[in-house]
């Protein structure tokens, strides 16, 4: 039983990172109708960004803040202006293909231009673990959970409590009605892209110490983000959190009790089960198709 609780706990910590990536993914889908297949690379790039700034001598917090700014500029604003804006009018498929192009290009540029190796990434939390109610808890897991939890709480209260946040939700729910009400839709959509870029940096900071910074580290985390978003419910931000944590826990449990070799397959099986029995996702509401 001790094993099991420990697995659930560390799974929740990993799942919280998936949830952050999934959250950004869901927000983009809700507000702008964008399915971003480069979401994993959006996590990989900031990891290298932070390594770059730290190699230049910046302390971790400064590297993190600088990368946040850079990420919001390039992966938020730049991504929207250069790729999403010109493509959104062609429909979903060309845009999705373009994000696949982004994914390949970014991965290959890092591999060809910088390094194909895995680079160690310092943990923002102290090493070691402590005993709590009979199980060993690592500081890294606690730190990850606290940090991810804080980000989620801040984001949720921003979306629910502030005028801007509520305007963003209005855009996500009904763009036309929001425009009629005088909401600056373009600006709200831009905010969503900026938030996504920032969430990606946080996810990178939390995931890179264990997964290491590598050009293809986004493959795995990107896939978990898609599946977490769908499992939880594509049109619910809370869904992304539930989906992420669920995948994190089940991966740990399957890896321990069944076979570590099939850990990566857990998300797919869960996804197939969910779309078979509850297609709108665990927390999602079913959407009517528009003609």
């Amino acid at each position, binding site marked *: 039983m001790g094993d099991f609780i420990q697995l659930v706990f560390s799974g929740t910590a990993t799942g919280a990172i998936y949830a952050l990536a999934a959250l950004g993914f869901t927000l983009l889908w809700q507000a702008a109708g964008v399915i971003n297949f480069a979401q994993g690379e959006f996590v990989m790039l900031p990891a290298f960004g932070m390594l770059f700034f730290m190699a230049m001598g910046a302390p971790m917090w400064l590297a993190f803040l600088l990368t946040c700014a850079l990420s919001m500029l390039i992966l938020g604003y730049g991504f929207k202006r250069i790729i999403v804006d010109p493509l959104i009018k062609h429909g979903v498929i060309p845009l999705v293909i373009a994000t696949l192009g982004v994914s*390949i290009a970014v991965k290959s540029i890092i591999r060809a231009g910088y390094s194909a190796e895995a680079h160690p990434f310092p943990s923002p939390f102290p090493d070691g673990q402590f005993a709590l109610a009979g199980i060993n808890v690592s500081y890294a897991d606690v730190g990850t959970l606290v940090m991810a939890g804080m980000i989620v709480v801040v984001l949720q209260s921003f979306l629910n409590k502030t005028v801007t946040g509520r305007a963003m939700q209005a855009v996500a729910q009904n763009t036309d009605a929001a425009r009629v009400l005088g909401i600056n839709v373009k600006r709200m959509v831009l905010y969503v892209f900026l938030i996504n870029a920032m969430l990606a940096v946080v996810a990178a900071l939390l995931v890179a110490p264990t997964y290491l910074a590598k050009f293809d580290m986004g493959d795995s985390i990107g896939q978990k983000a898609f599946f977490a978003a769908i499992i939880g419910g594509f049109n619910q931000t809370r869904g992304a959190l539930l989906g992420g944590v669920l995948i994190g826990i089940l991966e740990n449990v399957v890896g321990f009790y069944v076979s570590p070799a099939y850990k990566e397959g857990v998300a797919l099986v869960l996804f197939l089960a969910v779309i078979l029995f509850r297609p709108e996702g665990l927390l999602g509401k079913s959407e009517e198709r528009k003609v």
Partner: protein
Amino acid sequence: MNSPRNTLLLAAGLVLIAVAALFAKRSEVYLLTLTCVYLIATFGLNLTVGYAGQMSLGQAAFFGIGAYIAAIAMKAGVPFLAVVPLAAVACFVVGLALGFPALRVQHHYLAFATLGFNVLVFLIMRNEEKITGGTFGISAIPRPSFFGHELGGAVPFFYFTFVSLIIVASLLWWLLRSPWGRAFAALRDNPIRAESLGVNITAYTLLAFAIGAACAGIGGVYYASLVEFIEPGPFHFSTSLLMLLAVIVGGSGRFMGPVVGTVIIILLPEFLRSSNVEWLKFMQKWYLAFFGVAVIALMIWLPGGILSFADRFKVKETAK
């Protein structure tokens, strides 16, 4: 495609390739055969992507399933011509089983389902060592023989693959011209209208996907026989991605689209690899980066793919 001039051009092109193979170097014949093998898979994928309007990110998984079935069955003594339908049927059935839950919900879910499927198939290939040989793979896969004629040589096997490709392509061409195939285009262009006219969208999309998967399975059989040694590497998700982009870059929904795209993803990197020119060697390292950027640019300026370039001028002329 329908005009007699185009048919003549196509026939001339095919004859030219067939004759060129006689004079080509051994390595060039190999590459030509490899292109034909991938084309069998990408022609099938075009049915899913271009005609049924679905994104499939798992074509390499079906390609791999076909290859492993071929490797295992042929080493057990099953003749090549029996392996081809076996692999096709297996991939068709797996395609139905995978596509059914995904397409029942929302159509872009197929992209996610196939992506996850590819990851899972890759894990099985790598981990189930008793069946697949794990990372060591399966070696010494025989080439087919007919009535005592061995097709072991590079050129005879090329002709065999070339003719098979033409047969598969012709079948797909015929399928798309049939009333049944017309329904594919209808559901891609306007699914809701197609449904109101009595086309069962889900059933047709599912079939298009499963037929596309079966083509990949057939391609996989030829692949295993061509390279004579298989391991999980070539069936990774990234190959699926390249196959999908090959179809899109060439021009999805155009019958010859996959030819252009497949030449770009298979022949071009090989050409760069074998080149002695300095800047081409540089290109080899950066090839995928350029390819990714080119895909983005293409989607922005020419979302219909390279083959839609000519149409653009036609539209402008009539607009005048």
